[in-house]
């Protein structure tokens, strides 16, 4: 079937439903938090009367339901809020804007059973994890700095990038295959301080969704996951402040109305202060060193009228590391999003976004003869137009997306005395465009579909000199392309399909298939992500990465949705994966594409998840059994080899215990198989050096990882509006020495012999944080 035919068929399916929707009326509106005016994402609206139906609010708190005329009872509920029930005579299109009151029961501990949701069982969506921002506050983390990226690593199917690291791997994918978006803008480097902390200041975050599979068609551009992060809108009723003082950083957030009930703003700031200790040092070299990061999140919205709301949001973050007279390194992301929500009519909701984002770094070496300054930039302009159409049994989503990329790989400037030459590597320009359509179709009470397609085009634009290379990486030719020319084009159709079948309200099976493609790639031959990682676009040499994933799952809720269980299996094929030749030089190399190897990958696994959502004791257990492998003709004799992050078993346990109104205790325990690494199979001596002989790639295993983290939160006594809390934490409470790296060295007791020496990073680390709100 051609692409055209497929899309026509899709349109046919979805348009027939609208023809049938005669003599029906639409109930629509926006659901908000009554105390702050924040829109609530994913609030449930259930109506019963002549027919029964239910829906959820979208990312802007908006919902619409179309039903035959009649008298209905409407129930609106949201975790942690008191549900609202209303009687409505639906004899015309009706607006229902509701503000829910916060329940005073500590985040839904004693929420009544009938208001517990079973969305996880019902929805056709698979592979979706939503992070509860309340739970996030009590999950223990390194140095008490709460962090969404470290919290998602506790979920099955998500593997950590390493000890204390915010990098993550989803279902066997690479770290650069995660689409991380903050208010729709891509965040290229999501880590601070070389990966120990993430760029997301939890104070400013409203909602986090992670798609491990079954990505809806509105998302595209990365192979293995989508992490969709949304900032707080700000309180549109009154001014509020909150903040915290921790061991590593301090935070302050202010929010309030611009015009009461119509518009609000939010500004949040965070900064570390390790370098203040450095500056206190009497040593002139140490007090001239820097080591800090800061970030600012800001957002404002204004409701022009019932049909139009505008949002503007931005993120600005920076890391600075430097040692006096040696080097300076800084890096950071900037994102800016301007959005217009427009309601065409009760059923058609649109969101128009204009987005700017960049990531840049600067490295300066200050040595007297090797001094230079190197800068690099990735910059995107992005336009998104997204429509949601709500009809009786269908929620249709369609839109388009266009992103212009500019990459300045490296720009080296030097002083007169420097022995390094100035260098400007050619900029690269690319255009990614996509159109998509998807339909969430509730066929009947039992059967739900979420299906659609995304047509993704990528063009590598001039100007530039584009080289082609032979199988050994030697330059064959170079083509000069003028500005504005479309040098290389790729077109990929990405079908997305999910289905769920409910046996009953607590029991369902689901299946999904989806294809994703990726046209921007990180080049790094080191393990951990580094601020100087290089970005490249698909080109005449680099083909778009393609992943096909099938998944199936069984979903079961118990005890009136208090307990959730799910088991999912998946298999993923990956094409056009990237690895590197021996002796590859990636930085400042105009022919960097000659250093690359292309191969395939496969990943498969089983994920089990058991969660207790309510009650004094809640939490979850996650288990992943998985394998991820790569195959390159030039590596490992052309045989499959395990990817470094291939960890067979991965277990995480999170427990939160609300002792009383003041004390909350929590713990997390993780266990995982060690990384796949290459150990020597022999050794020899050349040029006075002991050199190791390697046979199979990544056939060895690092020792396993295990860590127990504990935390306790003490809420202060309420003194009017001022609320405060203390958080105490212990990271790695067992003090286990987890492996960070292994080095082969001469045995100190028997110098001719070789032994393996393991380095561990963190022992037991206590932390304390004081938080406040008024």
């Amino acid at each position, binding site marked *: 079937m051609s692409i055209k035919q497929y899309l026509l068929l899709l349109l046919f399916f979805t348009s027939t439903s609208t023809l049938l929707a005669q003599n029906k009326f639409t109930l629509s509106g926006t659901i908000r938090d009554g105390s702050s005016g924040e829109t609530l994402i994913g609030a449930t609206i259930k109506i019963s009367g002549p027919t029964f139906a239910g829906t959820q609010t979208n990312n802007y708190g908006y919902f619409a339901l179309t039903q035959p005329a009649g008298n209905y009872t409407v129930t609106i509920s949201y975790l942690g809020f008191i549900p609202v029930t209303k009687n409505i005579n639906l004899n015309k299109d009706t607006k229902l804007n509701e503000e829910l009151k916060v329940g005073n029961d500590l985040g839904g501990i004693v929420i009544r059973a009938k208001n517990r949701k079973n969305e996880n069982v019902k929805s056709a969506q698979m592979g979706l994890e939503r992070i509860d921002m309340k739970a996030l506050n009590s999950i223990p983390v390194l140095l008490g700095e709460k962090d969404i990226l470290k919290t998602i690593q506790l979920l099955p199917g998500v593997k950590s990038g390493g000890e204390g690291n915010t990098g993550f791997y989803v279902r066997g994918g690479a770290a650069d295959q995660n689409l991380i978006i903050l208010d729709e803008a891509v965040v290229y480097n999501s880590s601070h301080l070389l990966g120990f902390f993430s760029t997301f200041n939890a104070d400013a975050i409203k909602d986090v969704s992670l798609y491990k599979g079954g990505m809806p068609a509105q998302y595209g551009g990365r192979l293995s996951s989508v992490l969709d992060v949304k900032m707080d809108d700000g309180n549109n009723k009154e001014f509020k402040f909150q903040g915290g003082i921790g061991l590593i950083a301090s935070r302050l957030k202010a929010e309030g109305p611009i015009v009461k009930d119509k518009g609000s703003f939010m500004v949040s700031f965070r900064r570390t202060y390790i370098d203040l200790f450095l500056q206190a040092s009497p040593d002139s070299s140490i007090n001239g060193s820097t080591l800090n990061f800061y970030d600012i999140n800001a957002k404002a919205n204004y409701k022009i009228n019932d049909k139009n709301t505008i949002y503007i949001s931005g993120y600005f973050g920076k890391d600075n590391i430097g040692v006096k007279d040696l080097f300076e390194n800084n890096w950071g992301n900037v994102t800016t999003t301007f959005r217009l929500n427009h309601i065409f009519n009760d059923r058609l909701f649109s969101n128009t976004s204009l987005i700017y984002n960049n990531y840049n770094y600067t490295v300066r070496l200050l040595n007297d003869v090797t001094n230079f300054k190197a800068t690099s930039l990735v910059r995107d302009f992005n336009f998104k137009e997204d429509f949601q159409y709500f009809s009786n049994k269908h929620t249709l989503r369609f839109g388009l997306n266009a992103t212009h990329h500019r990459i300045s790989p490296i720009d080296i400037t030097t002083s007169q005395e420097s022995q390094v030459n100035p260098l400007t590597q050619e900029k690269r320009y690319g255009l990614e465009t996509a159109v998509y359509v998807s339909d969430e179709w509730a066929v009947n009470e039992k059967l739900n579909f979420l299906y659609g397609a995304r047509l993704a085009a990528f063009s590598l634009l001039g100007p530039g000199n584009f080289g082609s290379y032979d199988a050994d990486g030697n330059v064959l030719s170079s083509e000069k392309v003028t500005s504005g020319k479309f040098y290389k084009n790729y077109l990929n159709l990405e079908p997305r399909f999910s289905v769920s079948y409910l046996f009953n309200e607590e029991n369902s099976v689901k299946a999904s298939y989806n294809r994703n493609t990726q046209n921007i790639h990180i080049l790094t031959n080191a393990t951990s992500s580094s601020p100087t990682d290089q970005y490249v676009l698909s080109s005449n040499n680099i083909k778009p990465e393609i992943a096909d994933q099938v998944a199936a799952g069984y979903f079961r809720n118990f005890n009136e949705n208090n307990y959730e269980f799910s088991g999912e299996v998946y298999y993923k094929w990956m094409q056009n994966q990237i690895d590197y030749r021996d002796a590859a030089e990636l930085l400042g190399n105009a022919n960097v594409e000659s250093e690359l190897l292309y191969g395939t990958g496969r990943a498969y696994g089983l994920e089990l998840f058991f969660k207790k959502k309510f009650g004094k004791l809640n939490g979850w257990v996650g288990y992943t059994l998985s394998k991820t492998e790569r195959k390159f003709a030039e590596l490992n004799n052309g045989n499959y080899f395990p990817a470094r992050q291939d960890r067979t078993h991965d277990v995480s346990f999170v427990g939160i215990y609300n002792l009383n109104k003041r004390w909350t205790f929590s713990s997390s325990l993780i266990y995982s198989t060690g990384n796949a690494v290459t150990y020597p199979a022999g050794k020899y001596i050349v040029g006075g050096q002991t050199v190791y002989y390697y046979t199979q790639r*990544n056939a060895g295993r690092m020792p396993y990882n295990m860590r127990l983290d504990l935390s306790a939160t003490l809420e202060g006594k309420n003194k009017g509006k001022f609320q405060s809390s203390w958080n105490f934490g212990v990271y790695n409470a067992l003090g286990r*020495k987890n492996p960070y790296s292994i080095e082969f060295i001469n045995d100190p007791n028997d110098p001719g012999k070789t032994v393996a020496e393991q380095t561990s990073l963190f022992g037991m680390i206590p932390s304390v944080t004081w938080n406040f709100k008024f």
Partner: protein
Amino acid sequence: MKKLIIYIAVISFCFTSCKKIIDVDTTNAEPQIVIEGKITDQAGGASVIISKTVGYDESGVYPKVSGASVVVTDPSNGMVVTFFEQSPGVYSQTLKGIPGHTYNLSVKVDGKTYTASSTMPKLVKLDSIGVVSNSFFGNERKTAAAFLVDPANETNFYHFNLYVNNVFSKRVYVNNDRLTNGNKLRIQLYYESNDDDDDGLKTGDAVIVEMKGIDSNIFDYWYTLSQQSGRGPNQGTTPANPPSNISNGALGYFSAHTYQRQSITVK
């Protein structure tokens, strides 16, 4: 280098790391043939050493391979030189290489033939060596340095050896002129002794620097090793055998290079 510094900065400022010796589960491969061949522009610098690998956890006594036939040819002038086994596994000849010439090596041993070829680059003069003092986290640290002028009209590759008080530094020092072409260079050689503690050079230390002008294949060989050294599994690039320019699966390399040596005492 930069990464190393950042690493040290983060570790020493924020956290304390710790090390311990562990057992790892590895399987030792069958012994492999290792050929290390050198032709230099100095008389008496030509040698071919043939040995075998041992298991990684065995003691560092490498079996020498005797009875090989070792022949070096220079197709540009028809020269054919047979090397003689001076001591077990060590084959040599009084061959003095000429910069610009390409040499072919042929080794026959245990019924297998291994061949390789290497071109001796033009001589780039090692002008001098010296001691440079840098501030490193508040301490003045002295390091050895080589001074030379990189020729602008050619691509150059350098490999250095450093000896301090006759102890060989384990670090691999290898440079190309990709970012420094045509400049006066001061190449610093950070000393790495066996016990990991790098305090820099001290007054009275006897420093010897050997500089070799190598071809691009040999650069790739040493560069691959330098990327792996001191990092081990789970850090840095995935370790792999450095690309050998010898055929038929032999480990090692055959290098025709220029050779210079200078010594100095640290003041």
